[in-house]
């Protein structure tokens, strides 16, 4: 133990403990609600980086195939319901998503970087309430 030191080991430990406690109880609790989120890009966004443009081009081909797939369930009621949920959890930008509901029995939903989503019908089969569906949409968005 160094007697001439200004900070003793005990005071250091106490100080550290107090700082840690302040972090967990204090300011860190603030949360951002989806409705308050500001989109980083506006509608009609086009990528400018070469690698992103390449990815978008591939995704456009993917969407071309999906949009014409005979697996789609084209019920405007269900699609707009899904669109509403995704818009609610994903913030304002997510309202512009193109939603494709596919008749696939597996539990899954997929989002694509160009702004479209595929929801498998198997996901809807396994959900017990809207909150569960919103939870999955959150994770996917």
């Amino acid at each position, binding site marked *: 133990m160094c007697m001439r030191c200004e900070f003793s080991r005990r005071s250091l430990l106490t100080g550290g403990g107090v700082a840690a406690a302040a972090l967990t109880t204090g300011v860190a609790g603030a949360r951002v609600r989806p409705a308050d989120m500001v989109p980083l890009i506006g509608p009609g966004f086009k990528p400018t980086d070469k690698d992103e*443009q*390449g990815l978008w081009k591939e995704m456009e081909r993917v969407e071309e195939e999906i949009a014409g797939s005979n697996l789609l369930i084209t019920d405007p009621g269900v699609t707009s319901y899904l669109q509403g949920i995704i818009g609610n959890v994903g913030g304002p930008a997510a309202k512009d998503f193109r939603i494709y509901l596919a008749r696939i029995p597996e539990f899954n939903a997929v989002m694509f970087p160009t702004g479209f989503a595929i929801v498998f019908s198997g996901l809807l089969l396994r959900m017990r309430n809207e909150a569960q569906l919103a939870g999955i949409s959150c994770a996917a968005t």
Partner: protein
Amino acid sequence: MRKRGAALALTATITLGACVQTRQYADVQFTLPQGEYKLLVLRPDVTVGSLTTGGMVEPRADWTEQARTNILAALRAQQAGRGGNSTIVEHRNHLAGVPEQELADVERLNFVVDQSIVQHRYLGDYLPTKSGKGLDWTLGDDAVNLGRKSGYDYALFIHAEDQVASTGRIALGVLGLAGCVVGFCAPNIGGAEQLDYASLVDLKTGEVVWFNVVDAASQVPGIKFGDLRTPEGAAQMIERLLGRMKPGAAVRRQQAAR
């Protein structure tokens, strides 16, 4: 002196080791289309990407667009020199008498059939049930229906994927080779590869009657055997792919016997 000679020899081996390989497969009874046949050429499936230093391929939109334009031009020039009556469908909704989605279905089916032909005939996962049968794949009724509705005799599908080594990749390759001069040869990382294939489907029977794979791979980044982004490279690819169509094994045997 001897060391330098060895390094040169090694460089030469690696450079020459790179190659352009073509493998053709045909139905045993396949005869080259002759006379007044009608050929439907479907939208070529093209992707050109950048081969990054780490070896990943990053798709590039502008290069792909350039390559597609060049390939279509080369195809038109090549088809003009042939006897048949051919049409190139650039968009799925441009074929009279066939709904867009029906054509899309045939294209998707062909995509997976072509992939399995490449997998099981070219890449080495040979199937014992298909050996000695020439080319034994079919698109079935979908293709027959397409032929009936559109009035074409054959459909030609083209797939092309190309890579261009990035500057970082070239630098790494050069560095690896330069090491040989001082006696330390780094493992060669390999260069860009171009893989193309084409399949000809008889729309009367739905069968894939002819298939060709072109694999142009280079061992040294920066050296390329045909660049689809240039009109010359695209013309060269079309020539390699469609230039020397051979008849099926049974037909060739008959011709030889005569």
